[in-house]
């Protein structure tokens, strides 16, 4: 609400010049509007919070005690101003030395001692190793178990190796090899066919009661003869006469024949052969002397 300018009210009788009828005083802008609000606010405060009523409280008997508290405080301040403390004899003479010593100690704390490089980075590992060793020695005392020399070093290498292998497996997930389509289905029949095609004079099944050494030995002799016949076919200058070869085998030690056979068979055959080697009688004509032409011919038919 704008206030009307009432400055010149009731001044009509003064007969002042018009230039002096101008109000020389000014107020801040919106002063009168704010004045109304402020006045109303104060009225509300007065209504809600009468000046004779306060919301602050004090402890019981506060004012009664206040006087004595104040007096005590005053006395304490007076006493503090008096010099009532004492010091030991020559305190101040020694105080300086003590202070300088403490300063030097503090300076030393700031000085770093010389330590090996990477000391702290390896310290934790060393401590853990010492702990492990001490625990291990305790275990050794308790359980009686011992370890191979350099066990932990070897174990560490093994573990690192396994980790490296795992890393390779992560890089290479498959091998890459392939087989022709249907290969494994046909492999079984191939093996069975070859099994039939490659039938040789089998060494008899080991039967403790029915085993016949003589027939078995004949097969070994026949094999050795066939080997020499094979040799003679590659060297035609030698006379490929079977009867002569049979007779010449008498001069060859049995060990040499076995070694020759072993070269062309696997160790299991050799072992089997060695177990059942025929021991010729004193009057025997030697190896091959009891091989008949029929046995020899059968053997050659199967192997050549």
């Amino acid at each position, binding site marked *: 609400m704008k206030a009307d300018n009432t400055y010149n009210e009731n001044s009509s009788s003064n007969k002042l010049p018009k230039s002096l009828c101008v109000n020389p005083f000014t107020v801040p802008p919106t002063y009168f509007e704010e004045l109304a609000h402020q006045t109303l606010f104060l009225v509300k405060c007065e209504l809600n919070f009468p000046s004779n009523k306060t919301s602050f409280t004090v402890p019981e008997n506060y004012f009664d005690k206040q006087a004595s508290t104040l007096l005590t405080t005053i006395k304490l301040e007076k006493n503090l101003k008096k010099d009532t403390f004492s010091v030991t004899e020559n305190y101040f003479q020694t105080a300086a030395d003590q202070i300088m010593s403490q300063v030097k100690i503090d300076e030393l704390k700031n000085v770093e001692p010389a330590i090996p490089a990477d000391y702290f980075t390896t310290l934790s590992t060393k401590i853990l190793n010492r702990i492990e060793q001490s625990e291990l020695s305790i275990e050794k005392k308790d359980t009686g178990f011992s370890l191979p020399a350099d066990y932990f070093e*070897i174990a560490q*290498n*093994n573990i*690192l*190796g396994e980790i*490296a*292998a795992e*890393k*390779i*497996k992560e*890089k*290479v997930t*498959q*091998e*890459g*090899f*392939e*087989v*022709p389509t249907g*290969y*494994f289905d046909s*492999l*079984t029949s*191939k*093996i*069975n066919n*070859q*099994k039939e095609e*490659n039938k040789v004079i*089998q060494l008899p*099944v*080991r039967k403790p009661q029915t085993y016949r050494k003589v027939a078995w030995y004949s097969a070994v002799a026949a094999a050795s003869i066939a080997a020499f016949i094979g040799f003679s076919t590659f060297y035609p200058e030698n006379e490929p006469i079977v009867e002569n070869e049979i007779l010449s085998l008498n001069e060859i030690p049995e060990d040499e024949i076995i070694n020759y056979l072993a070269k062309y068979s*696997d160790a*299991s*055959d050799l072992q*089997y052969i060695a177990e059942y080697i025929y021991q010729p009688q004193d009057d025997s004509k030697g190896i091959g002397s009891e091989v008949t032409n029929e046995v020899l011919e059968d053997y050659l038919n199967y192997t050549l």
Partner: protein
Amino acid sequence: MEDSLIIAKFTDEGTREEAFGMLLKKYQQKIYWHVRRMVINHDDADDVVQDIFIKVWRNLDKFREDSQLYTWLYRIATNECITFLNKKKQKQNVSLDDENSAYLSESLADGAYFNGDQAQMKLQQALLTLPDKQRLVFNMKYFEDMKYDEISNVLGTSVGALKASYHLAVKKIENFFSSHD
């Protein structure tokens, strides 16, 4: 299919063929891959595998069951692989004491029945830098996941030596990968 059943049936002449069929069904793929990893070439592996099983047919009746059947089979297969590889070296005039298997690189390079990516080819090339027996140990441990005790029974080598050989092989392969990146 229990190995003891196969052996028992093989002992009886009337069921020998059946037992051999069971054995083939159970082991032929394992033996094939064991051989293939060593000889690389499929046709060579085919020949060697057939020789192995013919030998098994001939000698299974002599198997004394003082080891597991598959250990015995692996022993035969391993010996046949080594024999084949030695013959191949002789044919190519490579020393038997040669410290790597580079003579097989041609088989790998021709790519027959090999469909691996670059990483897989690199691994096979890395393996060919190993001597045959070390490669054998690596294959059995890494690809076939055999235990050291089992490998020891197959090869007749101590467990400690096998571990050392394996980890040396892994290290060489790692170095190969690093130098060929």
